[in-house]
Each structure stands twice: as structure tokens, then as C-alpha cells.
């Protein structure tokens, strides 16, 4: 026994597990336990009492948080699968591209929350009587908030593959499957990860909004933070609202540490720039796992398996990579045929929608919805202007002080990820208490969650502003108003536009929940298309939902085309600093 112990001590140091192994093992184990625990309640029958009863007990919050997070991850998984298929199809087939990319552009602009009622009914019918239907509906809602920009970024990466790397792959006869895993996916990785992070941040908002929903007579409350919050609002428990806010904050912090940061570190590996980047991302979780000894050794088995999977040729022998033939003329006739099929299809769909709306609604309804959308648009514009006036100077002030910026930047990112609808009830309580005008004061909720995108992009832009330009401005004595107009504002403009575009898109979506809020049995609504859609949802009035969402989507598309796209073009053409 003793000798054995001694001989064990003589073992090569490289064979023993190190402390990092234990820490990593504990982390992994707890993740598995959480997964098993959280997925237990998925398939309960809808009528089971514990399925829909939400307790306001604080002790239940960790479980609810877990369920909410799992929903989030399920949606992310679905979004990834969707991205790989949709974007690849669009990038590889010219005819598919003709349909898929404009469609994606529209889907990006559709206010997802407006359609919740449809998806809930659809999924409940798909899994009659089971919680799984409601779960799927919630996951689908989150999915719709995450998938589009991910698919778009992947598509754009696929269209911009470096030509020389493509030639190497072709020269080595990589099959399409091998190319996908060796070239296309790795190349797309950094921008895909960035978009995943943006999607996740936006997703918290939707997961909260989609857990507790009532369509007509059906009320569904899935166990989760969103339902907990809804229950708290119904019971007028401000302490529970605060507890939900705190839980959400912790969840976002944890997920930032355990998922975000390791992912960013991972994604840094795939950047194509050939010089080592100056800013190195760090993550203690990633460090921990990379320092483990046993775990790293064990992990080589699945890693090897996956990499040999990625190296499978997966193609019939006759499908050899062909030389790119520049002279192959795409058949014009087939194109024409394809376009006419598409045009016919969309015409039919349009007729169907018009018939659906026209049977139930009159021209006055359309006019009403247009007017209400205009109200909401004015709200969005005014608040964007206000947020700009407030946050641009603040962002520049912070950005000019690197040490301060380093501390503030994680905070702004946290605030951007934080689902603003969790704090809505607190605002409602204040509005009720002080008898404020909802048309004015509810407006602030629209921008509440999205203003941080402006702030953190302005900070990033100011930090990235070249030092020699700052010094030149100082050397020539450019100060005050002049400095703002001709030095810093043009300098940060591209960053500002990026932030403002994100903020504006988020604000339209937020309008649906922000213009119509409840506190117990008190309902406060502002005049706007968001309230219109929400009211129609509660009443189960489908034609009005379709009309509201449709008009809003058209407004958003026009807004993007007529305002943001030209601004983006300007930023790209004239104000890029590289």
C-alpha cells in the first residue's frame, strides 16, 4: 500500500491532474446538473398545477433564472443551425439569394413581439396540451430576435472569403463539406461571435416578454424570470420586482463571465489580419480550462473526433471540384422563369393578406394604424435625438480618458444586455403615483434599454480616434464648438451611426411593450402603434395585429432605407479613419 503510494508520487508531474482540473471539473459538473434540473419541467402537461403556477418566493428565483437561461440557449442553438443553413444557401445559390436576402432584410425590420400571439397559437396546436408547445413558442420568439443578424453576418462573410484562401482550398481539392469547416466557418467566426453576442444581449428582452403571455382567453406563464415579473406586477409586489431585477443582473454577469468572454477569446483566434492584435482579450474561464491537464487530455478525444468529422469528404466521387468557369453564362430564361414564379407567389400572398384584413377591417382602421405608427415614429425620433444630445458628450468625455473608459465600457455593455422591460413596472409605479402623462413619460421606456448602444459606440469611437489627430487639433489651437464640429463629431460618426442604428431598431421593438404597461389591475397606455398591437393581442383580434405589425414593419423599413442607409453610406465613404 505504502509502496504504491510512493510510486504514485514518482509519477511524472505531467500526468497528475492539477488544481485547474478540479476547478474546471466542478464548473462542468454544475453545468450538467443545472441542465438536467432545468429541463425536467419541459414536458409537463399544460393542466398540471405546477406547470403554470408561479410563486413569488425568492427561493424559486434561481430555478426560474435557470429556465430562462436554458430557453435562451435553446434559441441560440436554433439560431446557429438556421444561420448555417440559410446563409450558406443564400451565398451558394444565386437564385436562392434573390429571395432569401431581401426576405432577411424585411424580417430584420418586423417587430417580432407583435407576432407573439400567432406563434403561441401555432405552437400550442402543434403540441396540444403540453408545456412543450408554450416553450417552443417562447424559444421561437427569442429565436426571431437573434437569428436574422447572425444569418446576415454569416452570409456576408461567405461572400467575402479571401480569394487566395479559396484558391488554396480548391487547389487542395477540399470538398464543399471540408471547405465549410476549414475555411468558411472559421473565417466567419469573429463576426458571427460578435453578432451572437449582440443577439444574446437583445434576446434577454424577448425572453422576458415572451414567457408570460395571454392571447384572448389563453394565458400562459412559463416558469422563468419573465413570468415571475408578470406575477409580481399582477400582485403589485414591488419587492418581487426588485428581486427579479437583481436576479437578472446576476444572470447577465454570470453569462458574461462564463460564456461571453471565453467566446470572445476563442473568436480572436480566427481573425484574418496577419499581425497580432494590440488589444488582447482575456477571460479567466478560458485561462482556467486551457491550464487544466487531465481535462485537456480527455478533451483531445472529442476534439480529434470532431476535426476528423470536419475532414470527411462527404461527397460522391463524381462531384470533383471544378475550375471556376468565368465564361459560363447563367441561363437568362431560367432566371426569368424563377423571378416570375417569385412575383406570382408574392402577389398571391399579398392578395391573401389583403383579403384577410379586408374582410374584417375598413379603410378607417388602416388610417388609424398609420396615424398611430406616426406617433410612435415621432417618439422614436425625439428620443433618439434626446439620447444623442445626452450620451454623445458623455461618451466623448469618457472616451478621452482611457482609464475611465476601461472601467465604464463593461458597465455600458452590461446595461445594453440588461432587459429594460424588467424595470418597466418601477416606471409604471412612478407614473401612477405622480399622475404623469403616459404619452410623454412612457416614451422614455422605449429608449431605456437601447440608449446604451449609443453610449458604448461613442466611447469606442472616441477611444479609437487617432492620437495624432487629437494632437494636431491641439497644436493648431482648435477648441470649443469648432473642435466638436470639425474634429471629434466627424471622427466618431461611423461609430455613432452603428450604435444609433442598433438603438433605433431596438426602440421600435420596445415600443410594443413600452406603450402598454400594467401594474396590478391598472393599465397605462400611450397613443401609438405599440399599444394598438398590444391591445389587439390581449383581445385576440388577429386582423388588427396583422395590420398593426404590417404598417409598423413598413415604417421601419422606410426608416432604415431613407435615414440609416444613407448615413451609413456617408460614414463609409467620407468619414472612415483608416
Amino acid at each position, binding site marked *: 500500500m505504502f509502496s504504491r503510494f510512493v510510486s504514485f508520487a514518482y509519477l511524472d508531474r505531467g500526468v497528475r491532474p492539477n488544481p485547474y482540473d478540479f476547478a474546471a471539473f466542478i464548473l462542468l459538473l454544475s453545468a450538467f446538473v443545472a441542465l438536467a434540473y432545468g429541463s425536467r419541467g419541459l414536458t409537463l402537461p399544460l393542466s398540471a398545477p405546477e406547470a403554470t403556477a408561479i410563486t413569488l418566493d425568492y427561493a424559486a428565483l434561481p430555478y426560474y433564472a435557470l429556465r430562462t437561461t436554458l430557453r435562451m440557449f435553446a434559441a441560440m442553438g436554433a439560431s446557429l443551425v438556421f444561420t448555417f443553413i440559410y446563409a450558406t444557401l443564400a451565398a451558394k445559390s444565386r437564385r436562392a439569394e434573390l429571395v432569401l436576402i431581401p426576405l432577411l432584410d424585411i424580417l430584420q425590420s418586423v417587430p417580432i413581439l407583435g407576432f407573439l400571439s400567432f406563434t403561441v397559437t401555432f405552437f400550442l396546436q402543434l403540441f396540444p396540451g403540453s408545456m412543450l408547445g408554450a416553450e417552443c413558442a417562447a424559444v421561437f420568439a427569442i429565436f426571431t430576435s437573434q437569428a436574422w443578424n447572425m444569418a446576415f453576418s454569416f452570409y456576408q462573410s461567405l461572400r467575402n472569403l*479571401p480569394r*487566395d*484562401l479559396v*484558391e*488554396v482550398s*480548391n*487547389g*487542395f*481539392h*477540399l*470538398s464543399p463539406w*471540408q471547405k465549410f469547416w*476549414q*475555411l468558411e466557418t*472559421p473565417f466567419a*467566426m469573429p463576426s458571427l461571435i460578435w453578432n451572437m453576442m449582440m443577439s444574446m444581449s437583445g434576446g434577454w428582452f424577448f425572453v422576458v416578454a415572451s414567457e408570460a403571455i395571454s392571447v384572448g382567453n389563453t394565458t400562459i406563464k412559463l416558469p422563468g424570470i419573465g413570468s415571475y415579473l408578470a406575477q409580481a406586477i399582477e400582485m403589485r409586489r414591488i419587492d418581487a420586482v426588485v428581486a427579479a431585477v437583481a436576479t437578472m443582473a446576476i444572470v447577465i454577469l454570470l453569462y458574461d463571465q462564463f460564456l461571453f468572454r471565453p467566446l470572445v477569446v476563442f473568436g480572436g*483566434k*480566427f*481573425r*484574418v*489580419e*496577419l*499581425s*497580432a492584435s494590440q488589444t488582447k482579450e482575456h477571460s479567466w474561464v478560458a485561462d482556467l480550462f486551457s491550464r487544466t491537464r487531465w481535462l485537456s487530455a480527455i478533451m483531445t478525444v472529442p476534439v480529434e473526433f470532431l476535426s*476528423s468529422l470536419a*475532414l470527411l*469528404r462527404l461527397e460522391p466521387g463524381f462531384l*470533383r*471540384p*471544378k*475550375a*471556376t*468557369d*468565368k*465564361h459560363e453564362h447563367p441561363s437568362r430564361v431560367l432566371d426569368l422563369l424563377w423571378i416570375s414564379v417569385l412575383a406570382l407567389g408574392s402577389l398571391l400572398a399579398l392578395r391573401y393578406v389583403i383579403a384577410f384584413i379586408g374582410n374584417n377591417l375598413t379603410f378607417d382602421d388602416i388610417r388609424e394604424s398609420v396615424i398611430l405608427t406616426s406617433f410612435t415614429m415621432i417618439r422614436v425620433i425625439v428620443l433618439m435625438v434626446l439620447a444623442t444630445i445626452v450620451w454623445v458628450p458623455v461618451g466623448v468625455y469618457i472616451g478621452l480618458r482611457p482609464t475611465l473608459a476601461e472601467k465604464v465600457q463593461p458597465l455600458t455593455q452590461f446595461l445594453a444586455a440588461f432587459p429594460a422591460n424588467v424595470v418597466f413596472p418601477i416606471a409604471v409605479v412612478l407614473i401612477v403615483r405622480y399622475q404623469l402623462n403616459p404619452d410623454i413619460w412612457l416614451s422614455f421606456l422605449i429608449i431605456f434599454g437601447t440608449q446604451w448602444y449609443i453610449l458604448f459606440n461613442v466611447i469606442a469611437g472616441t477611444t479609437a480616434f487617432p492620437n495624432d489627430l487629437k494632437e494636431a487639433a491641439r497644436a493648431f489651437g482648435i477648441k470649443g464648438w469648432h473642435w466638436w464640429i470639425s474634429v471629434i463629431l466627424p471622427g466618431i460618426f461611423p461609430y455613432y451611426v452603428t450604435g444609433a442604428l442598433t438603438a433605433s431598431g431596438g426602440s421600435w421593438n420596445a415600443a410594443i411593450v413600452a406603450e402598454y404597461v400594467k401594474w396590478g389591475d391598472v393599465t397605462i397606455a400611450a397613443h401609438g402603434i405599440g399599444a394598438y398591437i398590444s391591445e389587439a393581442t390581449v383581445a385576440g383580434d388577429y386582423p388588427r395585429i396583422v395590420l398593426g405589425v404590417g404598417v409598423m414593419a413598413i415604417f421601419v423599413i422606410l426608416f432604415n432605407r431613407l435615414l440609416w442607409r444613407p448615413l451609413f453610406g456617408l460614414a463609409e*465613404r*467620407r468619414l472612415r479613419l483608416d
Partner: protein
Amino acid sequence: MVETRANAFQSSNQSSQAPVQTRPETPKILVEAKNICQSYRTGSGETGPMVLDHVSLTLHEGEIIGLLGRSGSGKSSLLRIISGLVQPAAGSLTYLGEPVTGPVDGVAIVFQSFALFPWLSVLANVELGLRARKVGREEARARALKAIDLIGLDGFESAYPKELSGGMRQRVGFARALVVDPNILLMDEPFSALDVLTAETLRTDLLDLWVESRLPIKSILMVTHNIEEAVLMCNRIVVLSSNPGRISAEIPVTLPHPRNRLDPEFRQLVDKIYALMTKRPEPAPPGREPVQPTHTLAMSLPIISTNTLAGMIEEIAADPYNGSAPLPELADSLQMEIDDLFPVGETLQLLHFAELGDGAIRLTPQGLRFADEEVDVRKQLFGAHLLAHVPLAAHIKAVLDERQNHRARASRFLEELEDYMSDDYAEQTLKSVINWGRYGELFAYDENSATFSLEDPH
């Protein structure tokens, strides 16, 4: 280490005495390209001017061929066609007697940009080509390590490309190409992204390996725009003329390896090639006139700053050249390769400020006058020459003069250009004319509205 050096010396000595005789009398033909044609796509998607016009080339076992030409001579296109990556518009291509329809197995390419996968380590980059072909893991690892060892990369196996210097990255490029045991190594300006010293080291290392027959390859085809590099490395230099690319000369190089750049024979050869490349283009052989009728606008212009043009005129006018400079010396003293030097010389020729010929550039009387004058007169002179000799500039000016408001949108001219050349060239040409026209004060151009006008803002 010492031993291998001695060996290297010996074997290079051997081959230096009889570089041709060691190869079989009638060397085996590896690749045969016959009458290869390739064309640009114009902006409107039609088939545009030719890039390669009936180019025929045979690659034998045991030779290093250099494809020498300026930008626009289609040398890179030809390389990609031979590799099977790109299909020619017309002509036949065989590899070991078999027609080529896709990427060829026995061919590996080294790229100017290295083209390494940044997410793969050195070892994984080298292994990739093998693993993709279903070579087993153990064997792939062994062969990759051998190639890495051969090319002088040991110790860097686990590094990522972004940690390496340019020279080390290109070594990875070589290892990756060699590991698949190709018959032919194609190199697309492999040293032009490297600094002078690094490039020289890599060249000699590669040549040593080749001369010692330590490489698995049977033949090398390299694209270059560096005349000295071609003379240093190749057995045969194929000179391509530009627009369209045709073979204008084939020059055998029989100098023994290692070659000395200062050897008079070496210098003579370099001078000869310069002279060949500055020869006025011969008219197309009968029956092969360009399909596109030559239109005055069908002339793509390179992006060259007026400062470069003025600087070149001054350089040639001054001591020691006094108005006439041999190109090899000019290239040497200005550290310019022919890809940079020739477009400048040709633009000066186009503007009638200088003439190219016999491997030298001579200023015209107007060129000498330009060199003497002050800025304002220079600009006037430049403007006048631009108007007289660049049809596009004259065309823009005529349109502006004709119009009541003296304004015209850039897109109009761009569309006209796109009838004759690809999108990229059209854009580049218009950009050049804008810059030159601004300098010559022929017209003003506003970026925001993309319009030409006659007056500058006051």
C-alpha cells in the same frame, strides 16, 4: 551542419558544370498549354478585352520557368489556368498528356500573400492538404514534419501565422506546397511581399534545395515582375507583353548556379530583357486583330500620382542621367521593380513627356521643359498634354464645355468606360483622370455629389 554545407557546395558545383546535360536529352513534357485565351468581363457582363491572347507554353521536367510581365499582362491569369483553378476561354491544356478540367493533383501553388489559414498552426497548415486527401493522421504528421524540417521551420510547428515574420510565413507556404509531393510548383510572385534581405535568403535557400535535387518537384513555374529575380533563378524566361497578354520573347538562361548578380553576363541579360520589354509593341499578327475595335476610350490608366510623375521627370533630367536614363540603373537607384517603374514610364510616354526604348527612358523637349519650370507653368503644361494625349480627359472636358451649366456626373463616364473594360479598371481609370485633371486644372471634381465641373469652389 558543416557537412551538409560541403555537400551542397559539391552538388551545386557539379550541376554548375553541366546544368543541362544532367537532364535527359528530350525532357519529359509535364504541362502543355496551347493557344490559351482569356478575357475580362466588362461592367455590363459582356466579354471584354482579352487578357491572354493565344498563349502557348510548354513546361518540361527539370526546368524553372519565369513568367515576366507587367501588370495587365495576364501572367497571374496564366498561372491560375495552368493550375486548373480557372478555366480558359479558349485553348487546350494538358497535364502529363491528360486534358485538365479542374484543379490538378500534381500541382501546388505558393502565393504572394502567403494565403495561410490564420486559425491553423504552422503544422496544421502544412498538414491540411494531406488530411483533405485522406492521408492517415500518422503519415500526414510525419510528412508535414519532414517538409517543415526541409524548409527550415523546425521549432515553429505550433506557432500561428500571425506570430511569424513575412519570411517565415512564406516558408510555411513553401512547406505546405511541397508536402503534397507535387510534380510542379507554381509560384505567384512569391517574394514580392517580402523585404529585400528576406526575399534574397528565401530565393537562395530554395535554389540550393532545387540544385541539390532535394525537392520532390520536377519543375517550377514562377510569375514575377522582378527581372533580376527571373535571371537569378530561371532556366527559361517567358516575357509577356501587356494588353492583351502575348508571349513577346522566350529567353533561355544557361548561366550556372549559383549565379552572381555582378557577373557581366548576368548584367547583359538583365539589360537585354529591359530592352525587350521597352520595345514598341508589334502589330498583331494578321488574322488575330483584336476583336474589339480599338476605341479611344478603351485605354485603362494606372493610378499614379502626379508627384511621382514630376519626381521621375526631375530624376531623369538631373545628374547623372541628364535626360536619358537606362532603366536597370534607374530601377536600382530608385528601388523600384518593373511593376512600379513601367507604368510610370509608360504614362510619361503617353503624355509625350518621355520616350521608352532600348531599355532606357529619354525625356522629350517638353519633358525637359517641365523639369525646368515652376509649379504653375508645370501644371499648365501638364494640363495641355493631358488634353492632347489622353482621350478620356479630352472627352470629359468637351462634355463640360458643351453643357450650359458646365457640370456632368461621373457615373456617365464610368458607364462609357465599362463598355470597354472591367468595373475595377474603369473605376481606376476614372480616378486617375480625376487626379491628373485636377492637377492640370482642366476641371474640378466634387466627391460628395460625384460630379465634374469647370470651376473650383471659390
